């Protein structure tokens, strides 16, 4: 009997291996590559057409309660996003990335986000340098979903400032699925 990941995917043994990641922190805190800055805020606001002046107009922001420009709260996770930069080779391992890699190797290469809960503990100012600590919260048993056969992975992100004070937190759930195993066409009713 095959003992490799593809061979036992879908069995309790594979789920047990996935669940071994639960409660593990995904490596050291990831520090934002840049301080919270006006250019990135402006790009986000212009992409959406958000005209709230406290995000982009220093004079209006100075007259507001903030006294200065602040970032939209929902940009919480943007500051620490890795983009396409590879993980540092000496960071001691990353439970979330290793878990995703185990799922990829077993054929669950598709990924869609399904659930997100963000809580905003304080406003974010220009010059803040945020960091995020990520923990693997849970991995579901194998599920048959409209998109395909897969596992739901839930992670918790705690965003901290330079003084390690909480700025916000996020629960984030994705479905890692096997492309082509869905019950229905993945188009939904959209994108005619």
């Amino acid at each position: 009997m095959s003992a490799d990941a593809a061979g036992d995917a879908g069995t309790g043994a594979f789920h047990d291996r996935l669940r071994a990641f639960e409660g593990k922190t995904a490596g050291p805190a990831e520090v934002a590559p840049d301080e919270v800055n006006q250019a990135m805020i402006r790009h986000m606001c212009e992409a959406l057409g958000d005209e709230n002046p406290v995000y982009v107009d220093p004079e209006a922001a100075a007259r507001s309660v903030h006294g200065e420009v602040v970032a939209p709260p929902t940009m919480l996770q943007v500051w620490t996003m890795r983009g396409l930069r590879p993980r540092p080779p000496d960071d001691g391992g990353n439970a979330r990335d290793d878990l995703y890699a185990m799922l990829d190797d077993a054929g669950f290469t598709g990924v869609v986000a399904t659930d997100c809960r963000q809580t905003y503990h304080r406003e974010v100012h220009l010059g803040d340098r945020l960091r995020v600590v990520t923990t693997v919260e849970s991995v579901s048993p194998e599920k048959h979903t409209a998109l395909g056969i897969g596992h739901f992975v839930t992670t918790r992100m705690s965003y901290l400032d330079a003084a390690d004070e909480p700025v916000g937190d996020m629960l984030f759930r994705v479905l890692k699925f096997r492309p082509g195993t869905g019950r229905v066409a993945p188009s939904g009713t959209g994108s005619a």
Partner: protein
Amino acid sequence: MSAAAVPVPSRLLGDVSVGDELPELAVDVTATTVVLGALASRDWRPQHHDHHFATERNGLADIFLNTPNQAAWFERFITDWTGPFGRPGRMTFRMRTSVFPGDRMVFGATVTGVATDATGCGWVDLDVALRVGDRVATTCTARVALPVDPSDNPWRRHGDRWDPGGAAAAS
């Protein structure tokens, strides 16, 4: 500085009642909507900008709106209604189906709760939906603070006086 330059709250907690509906926001989603939002949010995974990757590797219909972009659209929809004194506390959303280029997304919301918590902070609870045609793509519950009177501003709250998770018992 003239008095007119000092902003005043455009919506107070007392102006809001359970059952109120927010004005809808409709957006025609294009590839530009998806790609600009993904790039501006540093969400550079290819399923949000590379059509061939999305369809051929992921087996999806097209590139699709990424999570931080959806969060930002919900925030814009809600704070367009509250005005700049409205302060988001928590947003919980479930993406049931993806939003693709060519979709017309329509945001709508109903007020489900109006309360003042133990610290005196005024809170509005909203049930929000992002619809595409007759399909509900994303559901969202949002908790946003509003001023309780013209001199109040939820953004001045810090520490124990700001409880976005609702741990303090709401009255």
